[in-house]
């Protein structure tokens, strides 16, 4: 009998083995057909302790084996006895008290010199605990979708769990070739699922995620690998790890990332929109602030200019032709300077969209024809002016005087852009604009008036700024910087738009879009009579003006014209005058912007006292008398400051007579 089995050991050894979980040993002598077992084996099988270490019939081996496992074990043992080398079976034994235990029998056959099986020895280990653990592990694997693997370096195969095979769509097996497993990978970029030497030894972690094509259904899945690299003492290593499917998580991750990315773009778009709106708001606020400022200045300035111009006018008028020519010239220059100041104030108001407009339905072709004299006088000979007006132009509604101003302004700009001369084209045509055809121009039908040059052009940064007040590319002193902002203000106030197309060295085209107006153009007004219109003493004019000097000048002019004049410093005083019945008053000539009571308030109150009363406003900043779109309210007559002897006389006469008729 070979000395291989531990049955010969002492009690001490047996106890150690028992503590280690070894439940018993056996020695099956094949030639003698006898079985020897040790005490723990006997105890496990419910045999009398005396039967240990004595030859027993070999059938004893199967005695305590659970009936369901018995045939299987018999067949396996038959194989061993016939010469198989390894025995490794798990089976149940029923102990003396009826408890069912799981045991693992592990044994081997020993051969004699003739290679004939001589004995079959082995060890029986109680693996009930392990079996339960395995059960839990199996359930954990299938329930959790986790597959395990163990790979020892140097071998071409890997021990795997059935869940491992299922995850990769492989035929279930306990052992798979490394190549079979790695063949499911879509690419080698992330390394191999089972890294063979030498890669395995160099790796620091088994953590990784791989894209695989499942072998059974060809589905593309994402598999994550986790585990440990165990280094054995002999320089070899084992890779023990798990794999699990992370396709769903990956998909969610991708969806989330996608969402995040689009969120970013969505936020960017929203922010950009907001930025645009903020820019527009800031621009509007700036314009509003500058407008208020210029409006305020214009008011005071126009009062002053009224005094200056009025008084110079008076002096010139009274002194006649017998004046010293030098004095005459000086006064003329002073008047010219004051008139220029008035023009500047007018532009300020135009830009701030506070100029009083008197829009009429006009024919632009006729307006352009009328301007040709003015244009040729303003533009140098080196510039070839071409005015092209399309036939059948639609009518537009605009203030003709201001429109002329705007066109002249653009023509002068075009001229200045071509110091060496060149063609200047003023073109008018009908155009129906689709959405987004021009930035900032809504779709609709327009008459487009374009002024083009082929001059130096402007850089995009410059174009962005040209409508800002006081922005100018001209040398200091050459321009006020109000030209284009006035154009812009006029266009907006007239319900139209301005568009600039320009590039450095490629000329500039400024297009004025004026909305089409249904109906025919009105005939232009007859030119105003040049002669002063005199008043009659029977006509009483009540002048209300808070500015002492303006009032004095106005009263002076009116008296000179032959009117009977009364005056009041403010609205309250004026109402007291109107309240008295002793005085017939034909017309109320009132300033608009006054402390405590405005001109319009006064006019309303006055009309309730004397409904037949005519009213003429005078203002340098007619904020309250003009409607938000810049038109003078119907039935309201306005005399713009600064006014002269002639303009006051004409306007007054006109209002006086119109109301009578």
């Amino acid at each position: 009998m070979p000395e291989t089995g531990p049955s010969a050991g002492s009690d001490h050894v047996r106890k150690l083995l028992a503590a280690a979980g070894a439940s018993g040993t056996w020695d099956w002598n094949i030639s003698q057909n006898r079985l020897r077992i040790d005490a723990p084996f006997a105890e496990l099988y419910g045999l009398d302790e005396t039967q240990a270490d004595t030859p027993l019939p070999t059938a004893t081996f199967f005695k305590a084996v659970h009936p369901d496992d018995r045939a299987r074990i018999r067949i396996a043992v038959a194989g061993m006895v016939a010469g198989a080398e390894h025995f490794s079976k798990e089976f149940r034994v029923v102990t003396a008290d009826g408890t069912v235990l799981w045991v693992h029998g592990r044994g081997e056959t020993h051969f004699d010199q003739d290679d004939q099986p001589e004995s079959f020895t082995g060890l029986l280990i109680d693996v009930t605990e392990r079996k339960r653990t395995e059960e839990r592990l199996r359930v954990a694997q299938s329930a959790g979708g986790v597959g395990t693997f163990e790979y020892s370096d140097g071998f071409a195969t890997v021990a795997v769990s059935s869940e491992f095979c299922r995850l990769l769509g492989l035929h279930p097996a306990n052992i798979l070739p490394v190549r079979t497993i790695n063949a499911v990978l879509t690419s080698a970029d992330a390394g191999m699922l089972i890294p063979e030497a030498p890669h395995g030894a160099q790796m620091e972690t088994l953590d990784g995620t791989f894209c695989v094509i499942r072998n059974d259904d060809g589905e593309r899945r994402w598999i994550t690998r986790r585990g440990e690299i165990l280094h054995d003492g002999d320089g070899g290593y084992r890779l023990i790890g798990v794999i699990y499917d992370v396709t769903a998580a990956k998909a969610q991750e991708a969806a989330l990332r996608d969402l995040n990315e689009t969120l970013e773009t969505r936020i960017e778009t929203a922010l950009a929109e907001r930025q645009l709106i903020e820019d527009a708001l800031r621009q509007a606020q700036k314009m509003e602030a500058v407008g208020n400022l210029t409006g305020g200045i214009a008011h005071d300035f126009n009062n002053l200019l009224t005094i200056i111009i009025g008084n110079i006018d008076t002096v010139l008028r009274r002194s006649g032709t017998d004046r010293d020519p030098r004095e005459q010239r000086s006064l003329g220059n002073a008047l010219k300077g004051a008139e220029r100041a008035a023009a500047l104030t007018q532009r300020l108001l135009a830009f701030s969209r506070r100029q009083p407009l008197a829009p009429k339905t006009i024919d632009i072709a006729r307006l352009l024809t009328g301007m040709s004299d003015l244009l040729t006088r303003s533009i140098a000979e080196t510039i070839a002016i071409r005015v092209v007006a399309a036939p059948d132009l639609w009518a537009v509604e605009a203030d003709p005087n201001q429109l002329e101003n705007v066109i002249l302004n653009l023509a002068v700009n075009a001229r200045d852009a071509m110091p060496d001369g060149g063609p200047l084209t003023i073109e008018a045509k009908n155009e129906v604009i689709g959405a987004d055809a021009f930035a900032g121009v809504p779709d609709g039908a327009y008459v487009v008036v374009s002024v083009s040059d082929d001059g130096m052009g402007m850089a995009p940064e410059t174009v962005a700024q040209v409508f800002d007040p006081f922005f100018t590319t001209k040398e200091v002193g050459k321009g006020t910087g109000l030209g284009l902002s006035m154009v812009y203000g006029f266009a907006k106030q007239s319900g139209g738009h301005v568009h600039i197309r320009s590039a450095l060295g490629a000329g500039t085209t400024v297009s004025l879009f004026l909305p089409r107006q249904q109906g025919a153009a009105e005939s232009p007004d007859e030119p105003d009579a040049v002669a002063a219109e005199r008043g009659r003493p029977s006509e009483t004019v009540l002048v209300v003006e808070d500015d002492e000097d303006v009032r004095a000048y106005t009263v002076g002019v009116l008296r000179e014209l032959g009117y009977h004049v009364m005056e009041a410093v403010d609205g309250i005083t004026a109402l007291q005058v109107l309240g008295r019945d002793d005085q017939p008053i034909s017309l109320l000539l009132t300033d608009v912007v006054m402390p405590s009571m405005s001109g319009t308030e006064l006019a309303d109150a006055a009309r309730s006292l004397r409904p037949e009363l005519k009213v003429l406003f005078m203002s340098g900043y007619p904020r309250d008398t003009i409607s938000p779109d810049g038109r003078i309210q119907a039935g309201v007559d306005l005399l713009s400051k600064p006014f002269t002897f002639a303009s006051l006389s004409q306007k007054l006469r006109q209002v006086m007579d119109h109301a009578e008729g």
Partner: protein
Amino acid sequence: MITEPISLAELERDALTEIVNIGVSRAASNLRKMIGGEVLLSVPSIDVVSQRRAARLISEREVSDLIAVRQNFQGPFSGCALLIFPETNSLELVRAVTGGELSTAELVEMEHEALAETGNVILNSCLATMANMLKRSLQMTIPEVIRGSGATLFEVDETNASEGLVLFLYINFSVRKHDIRGYIAMIMDLPSLATLKELLDEFIQRVMSDDA
């Protein structure tokens, strides 16, 4: 899985597994002596499948072309046995068997002969053990080496009207420090498999009656 026209009961499968196990043990022992190194042999697992399915099973496991040693056997049950390796393993096996002293050129020259010899050792061990355990005798032909895909190896008998069945044994035998693994397959027709089934039942009866 498709239900095959003939299938082994669980005990018959156990019995066959054990019988092949004995054969494989013998083969491993012989192989160990030839190679002089550690040979890891798995306890075989058995499937009875159609030839087509066998071809699929092996191509699932092996990416490269295959090389096989084939031996025909005749007796109460007849057919052919195949020892199959991935072709890439072939030279490795020859290198292992010849002790790693030969140059690559010499290996290539010896490949055919060495493979046939190795196949003979393994297949003979299995078939002889089976015959022995089932108390019958089998005649075996001289081994031949064939190459090709799983399909060419298993559909060798395409002229035969009735598709044969394959007793497919997964035997992973891994040789440490050599990248080698292989499979054993036995292709039999239906009558032969029916006979094998009977013989296995006899074997089980014999083993059980030892109880006395």
